[in-house]
């Protein structure tokens, strides 16, 4: 019922944009507050529709998935959480979907962060993943199946130091248990002892630093999940093979959920984002039409 009402309302809102278009051409520009109302509705209404978009899987997401599929149960994956709450709507669904996949596949997860709030985002993602009945049934143990090493300051220098010894940068985990006493880390000295690296990044330090100071120097295999703003900057690293796969923004997160068959928040959020994008585009078109019609009038008025 709510979904139908939301769809009808969206249709009405869409049609009212045509009225705004006509008004603008007539010389009555839209007020800023009206633009705000429309974008607000464009974000909220799709969230009530309970629908998802028919999403094609892009090559970069497919490559990332293929890399993950190659990992054997028991493989150790270093997971770097380099983001904070403002970027969580895009990156948290990726992290949750990955952790669900990893725990179901019995991968061993080593969490760390170059951003102070990263490890706390990881903790939230783990709590969400643990709500899955299959994962809950596995009775996973912190320290044996996954470990959260917390945050370390020093940006790219932390990555460089980890190339020699993880323990140097993370002498204790987030529960304050010494590195040497954590069963999962018994034979993990540096990058050569982890099978794979995945990085969720919203800026600097993030994927660029991991590629330049980690992949290039220590030669481990890595994939990344980035915000939509940052993702286009990663294409050079993708094409050279320094990055084995990339999830870009909300669409990347939704594709990842689809390919893993783990429907989550990104699939719902993507519809809202697409509606918001469509609204932005319509307003840009309205603005341009108003601009050209006023320019035409001015030119006609000049002697």
């Amino acid at each position, binding site marked *: 019922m709510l979904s139908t009402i939301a769809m009808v309302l969206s249709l009405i809102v869409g049609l009212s944009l045509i009225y705004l278009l006509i008004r603008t051409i007539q010389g009555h520009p839209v007020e800023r507050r009206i633009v705000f109302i429309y974008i607000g509705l464009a974000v909220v209404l799709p969230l009530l529709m309970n629908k998802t978009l028919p999403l094609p899987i892009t090559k970069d997401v497919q490559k990332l998935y293929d890399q993950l599929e190659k990992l054997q149960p028991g493989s150790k994956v270093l997971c770097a959480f380099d983001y904070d709450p*403002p970027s969580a709507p895009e990156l948290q669904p990726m992290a949750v979907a990955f952790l669900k996949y990893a725990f179901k596949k019995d991968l061993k997860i080593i969490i760390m962060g170059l951003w102070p709030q990263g490890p706390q985002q990881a903790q939230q993602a783990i709590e969400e993943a643990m709500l899955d009945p299959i994962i809950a049934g596995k009775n996973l143990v912190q320290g044996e199946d996954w470990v959260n090493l917390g945050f370390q300051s*020093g940006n790219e220098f932390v990555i460089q130091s980890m190339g020699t010894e993880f323990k140097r940068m993370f002498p204790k985990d987030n529960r*304050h248990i010494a590195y040497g006493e954590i069963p999962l880390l018994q034979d993990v000295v540096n990058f050569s002892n982890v099978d794979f690296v995945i990085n969720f990044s919203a800026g600097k330090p993030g994927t660029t630093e991991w590629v330049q100071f980690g992949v290039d120097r220590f030669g481990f295999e890595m994939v990344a999940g980035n915000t939509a703003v940052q993702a286009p900057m990663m294409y050079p690293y993708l094409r050279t093979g320094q990055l084995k796969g990339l999830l870009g923004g909300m669409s990347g997160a939704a594709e990842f959920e689809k390919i893993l068959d783990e429907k989550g928040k990104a699939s719902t959020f993507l519809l809202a984002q697409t509606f918001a994008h469509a*609204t932005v*585009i319509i307003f840009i078109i309205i603005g*341009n039409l108003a601009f050209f019609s006023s320019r035409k009038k001015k030119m006609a008025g000049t002697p």
Partner: protein
Amino acid sequence: MKRQLPLILVFVFGTLMVIQYFVPHENSEIVKGFLLDWIVIIGIFALALGLWSLVQVSVAKINSRKENWEYPLVTLISLTVMIFFGFTSHAENASWWGYFLAITVFLVALWMFLQGFMGQAANRNMKLLGGLGLLIVFSLLAIFDNSWEFKFYTAEGLTNQMFVHFFDYIMIPLQATMFALLAFFITSASYRAFRARNLLATLLLISALIVMLRFTPGPWGEYLAKTSAWVMNVPNLAAQRAIVIGIGLGIVATALKVILGIERGYMGKG
């Protein structure tokens, strides 16, 4: 010597790190590890300096009652309270009153100390004495109130209920709200300023439309998705490569200038 010593240090350590990168020997790794530890330590000092600078600026604003002086006050209180929660733990099922009383006493004591050190000269000693008195009261509360305790050397504070709740229910929603507001301002700004005035602006506009509309259902969507992938993989990739190579060369040039002492901006003078 005052000017020459930093130049010598930069030259020696800069050259050492460049050479070290190409020497995969155990001793080389030890040197690298030692120097990287220094960077982390210096970074932590920068954090402490940043905190002190924040406190100084905030107290000065509050004391001079500049416009919006209430905001620095909220900043200082939030900073202190979060640090306090991070370093303490609260006993399960115990009353919260003692804990909150201790925080209040601590905040007032801290404020009196700050006023004593950084405030106006009048009554400076009185404020310092008042702060000291309250600190003693706070210490007594810490000793005799069993509902909470300090956890300086363990990470229990990070799982403190108040610390987690402040992060989950205040910090996350506030930061998310600030970021969400961007959607409104970007739409409004695009509507008012994104105009196809010339060829480049038109190209940018068309590319943006293609990338944003790539999820449109139906055959149009498929075509747009393919075009969007081309935009990202060809023109975008070419431009990004040029930028990355340009930045790389710029970094090498600047690093060489710093190592050779041509660029001396880090010493406070250009």
